[in-house]
Structure formats: structure tokens, C-alpha cells
């Protein structure tokens, strides 16, 4: 087995299996790691003579290294094992949480969860709680919004109950989630089969549990405007799809971003489709978000594609990566704490793992001892890019010199679009593009002032849209601290502005800059530009 090219796939379900199969087909060796004893897959499931290793009852406890060279430590039923691998895919199954508590109900033979009903319908000979002729009520996102996965399952089960079990099915819902494959057609089919839908928009039913364990549902019907009392034979509560506890452990082990529900992958469009904040660590299907089986396959394909692409890319580490002057480093670990891509490793002192570094410059801008450099982002290099346009007037008509620091992923593209569309732009505008606004340092801003900028605008991605997760927030924080310096220097605070923008908003770019120019014209020539006088103009 070529260990260097091994990919670890974490999970024991169908999504993990699909990824493993696809990668094996491409000759990539895989280690499938499942925390469960009976993972739903065994070695004989895999094609013969393929480089596959299956570890069950195994939990990941530690991960070192970076893309192409991770070392993963695992606990195999009490035994510590390690693997050297290139890439990691998280495809751990999600979990269902029945909403009994939400509706104030206690599970009983009359009050079941969606999964219980699913099991009963699949094996009615083993469990006869649902009898022919029953009235069965489903709650579908009644008190809390649900999703098309749950809604689709409810509709399929109700079809079966209605036709095979001769039940009369009622579905009580707030917003029926039909934004999934074929769900609107399925909805119509269930209605044709006699399933009754009761929708609530401005009212809610009151739900209680009777002594005979049946639910008592009292509601105002919005269509007939009548009050109803209803005690179904079986009441089925819906379920929330949530990440497993093990998945939250994994996000800590791998230092990955999460969304508000705890699924892996921060809620950031830059991570679409299966990327995380770490190169070489991908997330698919049930570990990523609430999805149908079809969507799991789409994720599995994207994970396969990404792993294959990473193994194929043999490009050397680009030059513009962070470097730490370890002689001057005082080991404050600011860089280690802040790096969104986990590209800083520690031995005696921190060092940068070039393969994982994305060159955003956050570490360099935040390092209190300025021991970190990135090619292209050093003070002198940025300073060289700030060249005052030669024909700017100061005496009779004041045309301000404006420096706009632009994030390459948003503002720079909006600028290009605005230029292409010939939109208005300040005459004295110079844009300085950077890989991320988080890389704009105090030094860069001071260089702009020294070069005689009358106004400085920092343009970042919108909050929650930063490729480096919080680069835009760091940029704003840094600008705030510079403003205190402005006070000391006697400079007007309005000369430094931070704004957010998206790559496709050319008109907004033009408006932001032209309005800023008007504001600077009112303020007049910057005090520093005046005292520096036209020195810069003479030399360059």
C-alpha cells in the first residue's frame, strides 16, 4: 500500500462507502475509519485486491501535519495506532433527534417518532402497533421549521399507511417543505390517496397527552374557521437531523469550522461544495449539512473529485507564503492562534507549513514583533505600489489622492467590473490589491499616509464571506486601532474608512469611492500630505 497517497475516510455509512469505492477505482488507497462496531460495511463489501483498510470501533484522537502529510492517531478499541496519510474526508453519519419534548409529549405506544414508524412499516410482522383503520397524525415542522428530508419521509410513510395499512393520515404542518426532488409531485400524490393536510400559519394547535396515552390536539382550522378536537390513534412527531457528538469531537481534533447547528464547514460560501478551512480535509454528505441520499451522492462525487485533484496537483508551494524569522520570534503564538488554515505548527518555535498556508497575511499583519513576512506584502513592497498619480491638483482645484486597499476575492473584482463598465471613479484613486483584507497591516496604512494619501479606504468581503474566515474582522479592528493614532496625529478620522463589498457589485464600488472622494474634498488636503509637502511628487 502506498501510504503517502492514502486517504482516510471517516464514517461507516453509504456516503463514506461511495467515496471509498470511487477512490479505489482510481487506484487511490483508502483507510475507512468508523467509530462503530458494526459500521454497516465490512471488508468483503469492497472490490477484491484493492488497497483498502477498514478500521471499525476506531476513533480519531489526534491529527498532526498538513495536506499531503498528515499523521492521524487513532484509538482502536483501546489500542493506539497511527497512520500517515495525504488527505482526510469526513463523512460521518448524522443523527435523528425526535421532537417529543418540543410538543410536550412523552413517547408511548400511541406516540411515536418518525424513525419508529419507519421501522414498524418496514417490519410490520415484528411490531403491530399500527393497526388497520387507525387515524394517524404526523407533525411536520409544526413548532419549528423542518426540512425537505423529513417532509419527504413523512409523505412517503403516509402514502404507505394510507394505502397498505388503510390508515387515515393527517399531516399537521406549518410550512410544508417541498423544495426537494419530486416532493411537490409526491405531495399531490399523497393528497390524491386521501392524506389530509392541516396547515397552520397564524395559529398553532394545543397539544396534550391523555391518560390513554393518545395525544389530544385542539386547533382552529384556518380554512373552515372552525374549532376542532382530535385524538388520533397514533401521533407521530417529526425529528431534527443533527450532527453526532463524535462529529463535534472530530471538528476539535481537526480544528475545523462549524455552522451554528454543529455540522462541519463554516457557513461560508467560500467552502462550497465540500471544502473546509484546511486544505486536504474535506467534508461530505451527512457531516456537512442536512441532505437527502441523492445529495449525499453529489457530495461524495465532489469529495472524490477534490481528493483526486489534490493528489494530481504536484505544483510546488508558491512563493507568496508566510515565513517566520525564528531568530526574532518571541513565541507569543499569536500566529498559531489566528491562522484560519492551521498552517502554523509548533516545535521549539512556531513554523509555517507551506503546503497549508494560503498567503492571506493575517499572521504577518498581527504579529506584534513583525517577524513574519510574505512575499508581496512587506511594507516596502506595498509602499512601492502606492504611487501618487502625477497630475493631481492641490492648489486651485483639489483632487484628493485616495488609496483603496482591496481584497482580491471581492473588491478587486468589483473594481475590474466597474472599470470595464466605465463607471465613475475618483481621478486620484490608487488601488492596492491583497489576497485578504486581514493582511492589511498598520504598517501598510502608515505607508499610504506617508505617500500622501488624503483618504484611505479598506474594502473587505462581507462578514461571513471571508475566505480566511475573519480576515475582514481583523482588518476592521486594525483600522479602529489606527484611528486612535489619527487622533494623536491630528488627522480627521473620516480619512480612513472600512467598507464591505461583493465581487459582483461594480456600481456599489463606484458609488462607495466617489462618495468617499466627495467627503475627502470637503476635508481638504491631509495634514501629513501637506507637511510631507510635495516631496514624493518630486522623487516620483
Amino acid at each position, binding site marked *: 500500500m502506498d501510504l503517502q497517497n492514502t486517504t482516510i475516510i471517516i464514517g461507516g455509512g453509504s456516503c463514506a462507502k461511495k467515496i471509498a469505492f*470511487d477512490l479505489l477505482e*482510481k*487506484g487511490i488507497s483508502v483507510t475507512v475509519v468508523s467509530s462503530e462496531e458494526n459500521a454497516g460495511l465490512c471488508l468483503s463489501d469492497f472490490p477484491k485486491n484493492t488497497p483498502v483498510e477498514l478500521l471499525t470501533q476506531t476513533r480519531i484522537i489526534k491529527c498532526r501535519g498538513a495536506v499531503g502529510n498528515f499523521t492521524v492517531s487513532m484509538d482502536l478499541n483501546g489500542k493506539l495506532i497511527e497512520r500517515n496519510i495525504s488527505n482526510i474526508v469526513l463523512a460521518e453519519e448524522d443523527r435523528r433527534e425526535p421532537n417529543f419534548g418540543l410538543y410536550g409529549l412523552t413517547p408511548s405506544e400511541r406516540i411515536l417518532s418518525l424513525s419508529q414508524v419507519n421501522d414498524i412499516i418496514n417490519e410490520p410482522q415484528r411490531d403491530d402497533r399500527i393497526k388497520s383503520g387507525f387515524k394517524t397524525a404526523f407533525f411536520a415542522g409544526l413548532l419549528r*421549521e*423542518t*426540512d425537505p428530508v423529513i417532509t419527504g419521509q413523512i409523505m412517503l410513510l403516509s402514502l404507505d399507511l394510507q394505502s397498505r395499512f388503510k390508515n387515515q393520515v393527517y399531516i399537521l*404542518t406549518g*410550512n410544508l*417543505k*417541498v*423544495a*426537494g*426532488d*419530486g*416532493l*411537490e*409531485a409526491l405531495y*399531490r400524490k399523497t393528497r390524491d390517496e386521501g392524506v389530509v393536510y392541516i396547515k397552520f*400559519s*397564524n395559529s398553532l394547535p394545543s397539544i396534550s397527552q391523555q391518560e390513554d396515552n393518545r395525544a389530544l390536539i385542539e386547533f382552529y382550522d*384556518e380554512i373552515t*374557521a372552525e374549532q376542532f378536537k382530535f385524538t388520533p390513534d397514533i401521533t407521530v412527531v417529526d425529528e431534527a437531523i443533527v450532527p453526532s457528538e463524535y462529529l463535534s469531537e472530530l471538528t476539535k481534533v481537526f480544528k475545523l469550522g462549524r*455552522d*451554528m*447547528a454543529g455540522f462541519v464547514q463554516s*457557513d*461560508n*460560501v467560500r467552502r*462550497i*461544495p*465540500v471544502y473546509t478551512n484546511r486544505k486536504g480535509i474535506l467534508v461530505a454528505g451527512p457531516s456537512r*449539512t442536512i441532505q437527502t441520499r*441523492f445529495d449525499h*451522492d*453529489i*457530495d461524495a*462525487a*465532489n469529495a472524490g*473529485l*477534490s481528493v*483526486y*485533484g489534490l493528489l*494530481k496537483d*504536484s505544483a510546488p508551494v508558491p512563493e507568496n507564503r508566510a515565513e517566520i524569522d525564528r531568530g526574532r520570534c518571541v513565541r507569543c503564538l499569536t500566529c498559531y492562534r489566528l491562522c484560519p488554515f492551521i498552517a502554523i505548527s509548533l516545535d521549539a518555535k512556531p513554523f509555517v507549513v507551506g503546503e497549508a498556508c494560503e498567503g492571506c497575511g493575517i499572521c504577518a499583519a498581527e504579529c506584534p514583533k513583525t517577524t513574519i513576512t510574505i512575499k508581496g506584502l512587506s511594507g516596502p513592497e506595498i509602499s512601492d505600489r502606492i504611487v501618487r498619480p502625477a497630475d493631481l491638483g492641490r492648489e486651485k482645484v483639489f483632487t484628493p489622492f485616495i488609496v483603496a486597499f482591496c481584497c482580491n*476575492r*471581492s473588491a478587486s*473584482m468589483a473594481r*475590474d467590473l466597474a472599470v470595464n463598465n466605465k463607471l465613475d471613479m475618483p481621478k486620484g484613486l490608487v488601488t492596492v490589491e491583497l489576497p485578504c483584507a486581514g493582511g492589511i497591516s498598520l504598517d501598510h496604512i502608515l505607508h499610504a499616509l506617508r505617500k500622501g494619501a488624503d483618504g484611505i479606504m479598506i474594502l473587505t468581503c*462581507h*462578514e*461571513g*464571506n471571508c475566505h480566511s474566515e475573519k480576515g475582514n474582522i481583523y482588518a476592521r479592528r486594525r483600522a479602529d486601532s489606527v484611528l486612535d493614532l489619527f487622533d494623536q496625529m491630528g488627522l480627521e478620522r473620516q480619512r480612513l474608512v472600512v467598507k*464591505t*463589498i*461583493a*465581487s*459582483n*457589485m461594480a*456600481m*456599489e464600488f463606484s458609488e462607495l469611492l466617489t462618495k468617499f472622494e466627495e467627503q475627502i474634498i470637503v476635508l481638504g488636503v491631509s495634514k501629513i500630505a501637506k507637511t510631507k509637502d510635495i516631496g514624493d511628487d518630486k522623487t516620483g
Partner: protein
Amino acid sequence: MGSIINMQRKHAIVIGGGIAGLCAALELARFDIDVDLVEKGPALGGHARSLTCKATDRCVKCGACLVEERLQAVVENPNIKVHLGSEIMEVQDSGGFSVVISNEGKSTCSCEADAVIIASGFSLFRPDGKPYGYKRFANVLTNLDLERMIRMQGSVKRPSDQREPEKIAFIQCVGSRDAKTGHLWCSRICCGAALRMSRLIRSRQPQVTISVFYIDIQSSGRDFQFFLDGLRNDVRLIRAIPADVFRTEDDRLSMSYFDPTSRQSKDEIFDMIILSVGLCPGDDLKGLCSLFGMKLSDSGFVTVSDKTEYPEKHGVFAAGTVLGPMGIAESIASAGKAVWEAIRYLKI
């Protein structure tokens, strides 16, 4: 791992230069596949490119910003040749595909391909036939018209007099979930788009009140509950399908609907009405698929038998909204899947 690259370069055609086509072309090119990207319109980017960012300082994950970056990457990629104003005229399938591409009906070129990805997108439902006055009253717009307006001028103004509106109504599901038009599907993206758009307008023009007329609000994005709860004070949500729209003497719009709270038919005056029109199969999809010998489902979108096993036809793959309504994020993922299937098929 250099050995996994085949010696002979492969060639693929991607039909459609929207977000799915752009992503498919880029992913193919990354594997050293030569790509001909055929776009029938005069520019790349498709529908997604006309959408506006809906952030109010905070990103609301609409994905509209993702188009620009990919578009630039496609234009700069040496493995991708872009054909604008071009359509597929003829296809011969003899193991590989020999395809004739026509450029604005003026010239033709032929190219050979080992695989084809169809990503020709959707058509918007044309609401002219609905009694909402589209094309008759200037202040009745589609959601896409509104996206363009905000992207180009930053705020909402009434097309008839360029005044800022006070009351706007969104009508959801125009041409979606609609048995009358035979559209038995939810277009998936319009609820999220209308709600995000409402919030954007309210943040920029707080004097505007917004009502959204809906059947069922569909979830969009992660943590939709939080988003919806935060929105309820800002936007009036009314569960009703409006009946019709008339213009008043003072050039406003009168809309009648059955008010679920008072349980009475009601006429209400708005300054603008936005129709959330559905996503329908592309006008040219049928012709395109018959050229490649592929079948369409009853709904008119590309069928993939159980959506797990491509292809219906060997060497032809589908990506994006040709498979059914989906948003930008889903289209990107769909393109990734199509490329992965193509790479497996081509044994690259």
C-alpha cells in the same frame, strides 16, 4: 502520482456558460482536459451573473458573488476555449462525439469530444398569462428584473416614475407548484431570494413596507429558523395566492386576495408588485437532448434514472438546472459531480 495522467489529452464540450458550465469547465481543465465551452448568449455568467449581492454588511449566503471569480478564471484558463453566441448544430456519435458549432448563424466550426456536459440552464416562467399585469403595468416586475435593478442602481424605484415605492408585494410560486401550468415542482430558490431581498430593501429603504404572499415558506441556507424569526418583524407574511392585479387611477396597483385572518376577500394597494417566477426547463433543452439522444422526464428536465448513475447515454453528463430547479451552491456541486462522472468515464 504523475502516472495517473493519461498520455493522450482528452477533449470535452461543456454546453452552457452559466455557473454550472463555468465550474464544470474549470474542473475539467484542472485535469488537463481541453474544453470547448459553448454559450449561446453574448456573455458568460448566465442567470446567476445578473443577481445582486443581498448582504447587509453580513453575507446572507446567496452565492451571487461566486460567479465573477469563476468567470475570470475560465477566461484566463489556457485549457478552455470559449465560444460565445454559439450553438450546437449537429452531433455525430461514433464512440466519441463530432460536433458542429454554429457561431451566430454566420460561421460554423467542428470539434471532436470524448465527453459532453450539458449545463444549458433553465428558462424563467413567463408570467404574461397570469392575471398579475406583467408587461401591462410598468410597476409589476419579476424577481430577476428586481435583482438587476438593485445591482445596477442600488435601490428600488418604480419604473413608471422613478419614485421610491412605499409598499411592495412579492407573489411567490408564480409558475411553480402550479397544476394549471403543469409545473408540479417547487422552484426551490425563490422563497430564500424573496426574503433576503426583502431584508436588503428594508435595510436600505426603511420606509418601504414589504408583504410576501406565499403557499409554504421553503427553507434556505443553514439555520433557517433563526433567519426566519429575525425576519418576521421586518416583513409581513401572508398565506394566500393573489387573484389579480389592476392599476388604479393614480398609477398604483390594486391586488385582490383572500385574507386568511379576516377570512374575506380583500383589495390592497401596492406601489410595486414582484412576481417570484418559477424555474422551467430551458427553451432549447429538448432540442439539445434529442441531438445527443437523451430523454427528458415528464417535467421537461433531464432525467437521471435514480440520480446516482450517470449517464443515460455514455459520455453525456448533465449539470446544474437542466436537472431541475436549484440554487448557485447546488449548481456548483452538481457540476462537480458531472465532472467526476466524466473523469471516471474517460478513465483519466
